[in-house]
């Protein structure tokens, strides 16, 4: 019976709108962040292997790719934080109106970019 359940139309059937994009992005970024946290665990475990062995990781983080990686991680964490707050507000029963939902969606996107800049500035003690 489970196999005979009707399938929902595929993503290409629906007309794309902001809430749909954010819902898909929330799931994908959630998976990306969980992989990132596993890598963060490996990074912190690597400290046990001593200063000499850490040199290669330090070299990577000081490179442009390393800095880009941390900036991307700041954005994905920021997006997830704001998107999760949006979901918690929905759980309390607010923000379901289409117009409000669109506004909170835009706030999530713009806010995640602003938060990324703030995190970079806070991290480097520039503010």
């Amino acid at each position, binding site marked *: 019976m489970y196999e005979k359940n009707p399938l929902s139309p595929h993503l290409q059937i629906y007309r794309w709108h902001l809430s749909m994009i954010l819902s898909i992005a929330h799931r994908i970024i959630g998976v990306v962040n969980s992989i990132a946290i596993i890598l*963060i665990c490996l990074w*912190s475990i690597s400290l046990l292997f001593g200063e000499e062995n850490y040199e290669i990781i330090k070299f990577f983080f000081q490179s442009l790719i390393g800095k880009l990686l941390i900036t991307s991680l700041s954005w994905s964490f920021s997006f997830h934080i704001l998107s999760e707050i949006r979901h918690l507000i929905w759980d309390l029963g607010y923000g379901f109106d289409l117009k409000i939902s669109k506004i909170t969606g835009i706030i999530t996107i713009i806010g995640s970019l602003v938060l990324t800049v703030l995190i970079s500035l806070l991290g480097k003690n520039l503010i």
Partner: protein
Amino acid sequence: MHQSTKKWLVIKFSSIILIPLMFWFIVNLASIYDESYIEIVNFFSKTSSKALYSLFLIAAFSFFSLTISEVFEDYIKDKKIKNVATKILYVFAIIIPLITISSILSLN
């Protein structure tokens, strides 16, 4: 209380704890990631960092394992494969933070 309700409540509770810890961690990561080995070890050697990082890992792995199991629920049709994948996910969600927390606690 229904099992699904309990799962939903744990997801929501862990997300409420995770939000400020995620912010604390990413700000600190942005400030230390390119520092020297000594600076990073100094950061993780502080009692407050050890406590907050451990809490962050416990909340993150609880939250992500439960939400990824929901993704499995939606996209894996075969019941056996879904059960095995979910169990493997839960085992990793316990082992990885345990190893990481014990390694951080041993740093001085």
